[in-house]
């Protein structure tokens, strides 16, 4: 097809209409904005490529070009989605894109030429149908943007200085700290769709508690001197990004504890620095992705995944921990990939054979898939106990 510029744009907008509407439905069902954000990103990118690249470079576009161009746009959408923090699950995003691409092929090759006989010779222009479809796509996007804007959680600015806690966040909101904003006594989150950013928490029984809440984002939060856990999550789904936990007061405390949410969407802990306590990250009966975290000086294990949990443990840096570096136990399934584990020490006070300084342990019917881990300065590498399994490259 030798598209005209108008033909490219009309065809693009017409084929995106159905995926856009589907994205709206999925957004309503999931109560998550990523489907609409993804569809909007696909459309915006496609229009930009049409205007700036395709029209000039492709005076004639053979049918086979749909495949490489589709892959190019897929890569760009995924890359931009990551940059823009569109929280789409990878498999769902790929499926959505693939479905939209296939629909576009069917519409472009089979439906439009039947609905509008001169579709091909008009260079992809759809006449009044095209203008209507374009207008409808714009209206749907604008409506979605309006609803998104209207339903945005309110933003609460926390001024610099010390604020006496505990702060209880029991409504959807964004709590954003100005530089130097400190909460003394902890933060408790009990509502869905809560974001906490750029806040330092001093003390508290747990630095930050999240209970029965979903779509909670903790970003650039720093917990110091908590009595028990730095961040304690129960029956909730969270994304914790670029945090730090230090100076836990209790020797039984943990940097981050996420438990009992296997029936919820996966939680993510990413880019955090966790120092001291029994365990840096404790994931119990959850689906989780633990990646690019740094764990230091723990007294029981560096990272624990247990009790029928399913987790990816990737690109973490575990150093100077006692007993076990990364533990996967009790029917859990763990992909332990590309981690750096150094300085795991044998626990001289324990008679437990697992605690003899293993970098990675698979225990009690758990299954570890270990690949690409860099292990150094540790007496043992991979230990498998009590009917557990492990596969490694």
């Amino acid at each position, binding site marked *: 097809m030798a598209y005209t510029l108008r033909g490219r744009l009309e065809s693009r907008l017409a084929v995106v209409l159905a995926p856009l509407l589907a994205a709206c439905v999925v957004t309503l069902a999931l109560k998550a904005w990523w489907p609409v954000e993804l569809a909007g990103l696909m459309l915006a990118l496609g229009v930009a490529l049409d205007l700036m690249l395709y029209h000039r470079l492709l005076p004639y576009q053979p049918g086979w070009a749909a495949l490489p161009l589709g892959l190019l746009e897929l890569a760009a959408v995924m890359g931009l989605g990551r940059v823009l923090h569109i929280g789409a699950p990878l498999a769902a995003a790929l499926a959505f894109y693939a479905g939209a691409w296939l629909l576009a092929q069917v519409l472009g090759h089979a439906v439009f030429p039947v609905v509008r*006989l001169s579709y091909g010779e008009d260079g992809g222009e759809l006449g009044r149908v095209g203008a209507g479809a374009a207008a409808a796509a714009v209206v749907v996007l604008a409506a979605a943007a309006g609803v998104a804007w209207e339903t945005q959680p309110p933003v609460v600015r926390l001024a610099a200085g010390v604020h006496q806690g505990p702060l209880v966040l029991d409504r959807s909101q964004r709590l954003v700290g100005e530089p130097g904003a400190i909460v003394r006594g902890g933060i408790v989150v009990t509502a869905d769709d809560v974001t906490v950013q750029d806040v330092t928490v001093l003390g508290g029984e747990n630095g930050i508690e999240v209970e029965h809440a979903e779509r909670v984002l903790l970003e650039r939060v720093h917990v110091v001197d908590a009595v028990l856990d730095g961040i304690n999550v129960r029956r909730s789904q969270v994304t914790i990004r670029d945090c730090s936990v230090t100076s836990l007061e209790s020797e039984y405390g943990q940097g981050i504890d996420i438990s009992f949410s296997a029936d919820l969407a996966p939680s993510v802990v990413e880019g955090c620095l966790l120092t001291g306590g029994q365990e840096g990250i404790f994931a119990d009966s959850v689906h989780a992705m633990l990646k690019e975290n740094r764990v230091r000086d723990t007294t029981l294990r560096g990272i624990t995944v247990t009790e029928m949990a399913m987790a990816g443990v990737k690109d973490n840096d575990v150093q100077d921990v006692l007993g076990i570096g990364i533990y996967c136990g009790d029917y859990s399934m763990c992909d332990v990939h590309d981690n750096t584990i150094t300085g795991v020490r044998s626990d001289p006070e324990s008679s437990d054979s697992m605690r003899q300084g293993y970098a990675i342990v698979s225990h009690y019917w758990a299954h570890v898939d270990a690949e690409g881990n860099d292990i150094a300065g540790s007496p043992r590498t991979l230990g498998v106990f009590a009917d557990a399994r492990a596969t490694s490259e």
Partner: protein
Amino acid sequence: MSRACAIVGGGLAGFVAYATLRRGGLEPTEICVFGTNPDPAAAWRVRAAAIRQRRMRSESDGHCAPASFPGLAVRAALRRRSVVPLVESACDRFHPTVEEFLEHVEELRAKTSWDESFHRSRILRVRAAADGFELDDHGLFPHVLVAPGHPGLAFPEELAGDPRVVHAYEPHEYAGQVEVVGAGMAAATEWLNALAVGASVVSVRRREPERRALNLPRELFTRRGLAAYHETSPEERAGFLRRYSAPSYPPGRRWDEPLERARREGRFQVAPAVDGARQIICATGFKRGYRNDALLRCLVDEHQLETVDDWIVLTPDSTVPGLTDAERTLALAGAPAQWSYPAADTLMGAKYAARRFLRKVQAWPTR
């Protein structure tokens, strides 16, 4: 006889127009087709057989159905139970066989009830009236599409009366030494045909042929290329049409390898003029220009239509300006419609004219 539409010409261009009108909702009783042979592929079939054509130069959408989908590649894929035709089509490599094309024509002929609308009559005169056009003594028609086909085979003047001469589009066999005049698709096909039966071939040509998949660059088949074409001045457009009437045939090993092999064996050579061969095959196409067609010449002269060189001036929608308004339509299709669509003598060109004719008919207030 009182019907909404008349199609003058029962060849493929007329057939495409008929199928398009039927797709647009017109009944066979609302359309009159005037032609000399009820088989719309009759003339084309003879020419294709004469040059032993096996595959179409056109691609999947080189068919007569009004919508481009499903094209002949889809039909071939279903019949052969193979995705190969679809993959070839995606790569612009699918060329249906002549048999597949002719079968499709037969199917469409039956499906559209072509024979119900067909009238065996050669129209000699189209005369404009206040609310339509009179076609000889067949009555008045508000909307008329004229698709007279090519006005005859073209022979070089210097070969007139030479008993060795046969046109490529006339049935013929091959002598042991053959000179083929011309360098387009028919000539290339004839080179391979003659070489395949063991003849020696001299290609007589004045200029080197272009190598193009289709007979025009692809963008000229769509609005992308047509927009600029329609903005040209009359002189520019005539020059453009002359330039693109130069011979061409597709690139590819299918053509090059047999020729190269024969060249090495001394059985194929190029010459600027005919010499002493026993047989001269003129692959020189058709006569050009409206003056070679009695009906069109009469139409132009009686209505003083605007012309430029060989071409009747048309609007971009293939209608004749001055004879087309809200109440009546006179459109041309096939080779005479090149002024509006440079590839008018292809199946795509026939569809271009037919679809725009349908729009005119559908916009007719009394229908």
